[in-house]
């Protein structure tokens, strides 16, 4: 999407829950509940007339089977008008980028004037499935009329078919786990353990600082969870006190013998939700909302998922920048999703590389050298954690607010996603 003379799309509010490691604060909350929690609080804070929201696009990656259209459930539960249109999207780790882009696109098309985008994921409340063979046997048995016929399908079962199947963070088609991809990228591109650990340390330190200086208080709600309604406000994965020594002690998590990717330099399994309200700029002005900022362009792309599957950001960034009419060095901030330190560093390694630009991107000019002073200035997913469908919302709102603190400017937010996908957005404040 290229922005020209067309009206800008304003982000007039955004919020997320604190992010919490798997099986901690949100042990009992499913994605619908998490999504409702953040949407309800966002609308209440903004004191927005729910009728203004014409459409809700929400996402979840680990879908709750009984509520596949999470967006609609959130509408009904969060006190939005029941006549609000709602549908759900999934784009792996870039899901809330997609939700946001969908609303932005609908506004740009004149389909709607305001909408809510968001995403929620939990790795704590998961549907644990039966093996395909056991499920098939049960289904056949339920259709059979006589007892012998009912029993027949079970004869072919092996003991291992009785084992439950846990959802894995693994591509369905390539059968590669995200960790394996992270490891492959470290090895292929020579990203050392030390580089990864240093990057992880930086992420934790910056995120910790962001909390300590109160920068996140306004964009992260207070949640009260569990039977005792325990208050939680800060993300519980951030380790302000971690050190290179502590990180160095961790064993490789995926390739135990030759690997460099550890639990310390990867993003952990995390639960959480985020939401933002987008509005046609002129409408926001009439209603008296001061936008957090604007969305200037966005782009999505895909790469070969069998090799370097998390290189999406390198492919999609030049498209989004081109659509925004900006060059990398003009940006005030760059926020890149940290799935693995290895993945982030591998991507950044090729941004200044003319050969990569020529051969892989088909461009004459490389993307450019990243200025570390502008990169992930508040840390990233390694520290905050990564509820798959909520991270995009976190990155957009966090970056817009940081731009405001810096007196305005433009920023790139970009993320890789499973299946070789990449998402990028250019934001501006001014």
């Amino acid at each position, binding site marked *: 999407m290229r922005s020209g003379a067309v009206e800008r799309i304003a982000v007039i509010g955004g919020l997320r829950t604190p992010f919490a490691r798997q099986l901690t604060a949100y042990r009992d909350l499913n994605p619908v509940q998490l999504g409702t*929690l953040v949407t*309800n609080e966002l609308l209440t*804070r903004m*004191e927005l007339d729910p009728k203004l929201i014409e459409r809700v696009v929400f996402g979840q990656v680990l879908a709750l089977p009984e509520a596949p259209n999470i967006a609609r459930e959130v509408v009904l539960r969060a006190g939005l008008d029941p006549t609000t249109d709602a549908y759900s999207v999934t784009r792996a780790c870039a899901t809330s980028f997609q939700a946001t882009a969908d609303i932005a696109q609908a506004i740009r098309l004149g389909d709607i004037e305001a909408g809510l985008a968001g995403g929620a994921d939990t790795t704590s409340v998961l549907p644990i499935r039966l093996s395909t063979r056991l499920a098939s046997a049960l289904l056949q048995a339920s259709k059979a009329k006589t007892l012998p016929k009912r029993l027949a399908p079970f004869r072919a079962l092996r003991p291992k078919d009785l084992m439950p199947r846990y959802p894995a963070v693994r591509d369905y088609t390539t059968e590669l786990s995200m960790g394996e991809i992270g490891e492959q990228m470290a090895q292929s591109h020579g990203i050392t353990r030390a580089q990864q650990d240093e990057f992880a340390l930086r992420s934790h330190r910056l995120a910790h600082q962001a909390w300590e200086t109160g920068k996140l208080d306004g964009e992260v709600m207070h949640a*009260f969870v569990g*039977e*005792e309604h325990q208050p939680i*406000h800060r993300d519980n994965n951030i380790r302000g006190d971690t050190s290179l020594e502590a990180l160095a002690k961790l064993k490789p998590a995926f390739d135990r013998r030759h690997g460099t990717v550890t639990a310390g330099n990867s993003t952990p399994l995390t639960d959480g939700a985020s939401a933002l309200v987008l509005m046609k700029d002129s409408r926001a002005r009439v209603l008296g909302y001061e936008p957090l900022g604007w969305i200037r362009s966005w782009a999505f792309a895909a790469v070969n998922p069998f090799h370097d599957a998390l290189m999406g950001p390198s492919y999609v960034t030049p498209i989004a920048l081109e659509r925004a009419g900006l060059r990398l060095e003009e940006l005030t901030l760059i926020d890149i999703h940290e799935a693995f330190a290895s993945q982030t560093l591998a991507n950044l390694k090729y941004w200044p590389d003319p050969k990569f630009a020529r051969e892989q991107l088909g461009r004459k000019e490389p993307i450019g050298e990243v200025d570390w002073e502008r990169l992930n200035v508040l840390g990233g997913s390694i520290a905050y954690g990564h509820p798959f469908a909520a991270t995009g919302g976190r990155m957009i709102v966090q970056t817009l607010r940081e731009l405001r603190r810096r007196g305005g400017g433009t920023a790139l937010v970009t993320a890789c996603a499973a299946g070789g996908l990449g998402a990028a957005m250019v934001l501006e404040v001014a």
Partner: protein
Amino acid sequence: MARQETAAQGESTRREALSLELRDDGIACIRIDCPGQSQNTLGRAEMDQASRLLDRLERDESVNGIIFMSGKAGTFIAGADIHMIEACKSAAEASALAGEGQAIFQRIAGFAVPVVAAIDGACLGGGLELALACHARVCTDSDQTRLGQPEVQLGLLPGGGGTQRLPRLIGLPAALDLMLTGKRLRSAQAQRLGLVDDRVPEPILLETALQWVAICQRGRIRRGGGWLQELTAWALRGNPLGRAAVLKQARKQAEARTKGNYPAPARLIECVERGLSEGIEQGLKAEAQAFGELAMTPQARQLINLYFATSAMKKDTGVADPDVEPRALRRVGVLGAGLMGAGISFVTAVRAKVPVRLKDVEPNGLASGLKYINERIDQRLRRQAISRFEAERARHRVTPTLDFSGYRGLDLVIEAVFEDLELKHRMVREVEANCNADVIFASNTSSLPLARIAQAAERPQNVIGLHYFSPVERMPLLEVIAHERTAPEVTATAMAFARAQGKTPIMVRDGAGFYVNRILAPYLNEAVHLLEEGVAIDRIDQALVRFGFPVGPFKLLDEVGIDIIAKVAPVLHEAFGERMRPVSAIERMLEADRLGKKSGRGFYRYGGKRSGKEVDQSIYRLLAVSAQQEMADAAIVERTLILMLNEAARCLDEGVIRQARDGDVGAVFGIGFPPFLGGPFRYMDSRGLDAVASTLAGFESSVGSRYAPAPVVSAMAREPRRFYPG
């Protein structure tokens, strides 16, 4: 073509309540739609019409089935016309009235063609008795549908055959439970008990009723649930021993509950027993007689008075000008997530269904407030009082916050912070700073005069008092306090909102203690004086519980908390002088950190198995009292209660309450003043003001000046005059 007629076509131009539709299929539909009323009630006119309609249908051979239904959407028949019962001058008259009703219902029961009741909405009292007389009952699954026999709550019993037909239909234990508690069943419960034969969505109610006519036409209906129900039914019917055991148990429970103050439950059980042992004819006779006698009891009279008082109060806008309209409240803020704040949030989110922004400065305070609210929502969910979705919505209506985010556009903010003027002033200023100019600021003050709180306001016209009682979700009363500058629209809004929260609000004038706490204070004080004179704590509490209070004064002190009492007492003392002088015991308990229930120790001991059941004996040592004094129940009641009455009279005289009615309802709903006495003013009327005055004068000379009769009591005793027209 179906024919439409009314019971008395051409006789009168006024529309009648009952209309008859004769359908082509031979089914007669009788619809009840009382003109000019929101609910249908069975009065004299309705009974006469019904009787004539039945005459007509008995003669008509083309009729092969009858359906009773309501012509009003969402309500069937809410009961008998209570005015009609109240108008009866003698037991014989009331008995005759019941007899007439019974006769009509008997005719329905004995009708040659099937009669089916199609119920949507309230089906209570006489309405349910009518349905019971029908040969089958179908109801809607609507949330409005309620079935019950609430007569006992008015000191009466079901006088239209309910005591006879209900046990025969649903079995003795269930019938007794229903009639003795007066509870209103939802449709699902009614179906489970076998009270209705079918339960369907409203659009197919009539169709289903027609099907049941057909079922009845084909022969006898087989009722009864599982074998267990059958077995109990057999055991009770065929087995006088089993029946006697159930009845004995019911008597014992009724006795324990009424403390002998209410005659209706025992009479009710007696009628049921007569019917089961001697047949329905005898049972009906006993029922009509008991109904007549109960209708003349002072208990029933007072309960009916209270019923009328609360009904009349529902129309009270709190302001004189009839053109003042309450504002709609879309969103509400509550400051303070303590017990009161949480309770207020609960009734706002669950009953009024209005979103609440609950603010507290402490995250842990919010946590415990949310826990309190959610536990109560869970409770309602377990009781199936709300659906899973509605429970979820209710939970999300309360959003916690530590700052004023989401406060700008609120319509009403209720503060429920500590009783501290400084703090309340800060709340006023913060709300004015963080909300729009038209926000209503309501203070849940329990003793601080509202005018003093409003001093901090830039817009005092928007300041009002809402004095909730603890626990908020259970106590029905709310005192609404307008100070001199409160805008009438603000008052009307508060009154309407209180009702939406399920409260019965009374308007009280600004002043120390308002009404309820002011009349409560001398009563509680006197209980402590008695203790100091050597009367045992449990003796005093028991005497007043037997008299009809839900809890005794010491239990109440423990519940409220000694620290709260210690805060309120000086305010009252300052305002009213010597007669409200605080008792020294409170100070000593405060020093010993015996705050009542909240600290585990007060007059009673809390925690453990018999929590709150046993007096903490060490209290006597602390107060240097030996509980030796024997005092009769009557004397204990007289010494304490008379001060409450005296103070209530002062309140009316000074205009703290606007009329005796408000004072009676306030005392019953706010304190649990024995309802069968009608409230302090009804009670004074029934004792006679001269008797009240002389009792006070007697204690004044024997005990002390705090018993000096209020000027208004003396004056009314001389004239003599009553609070209510006799």
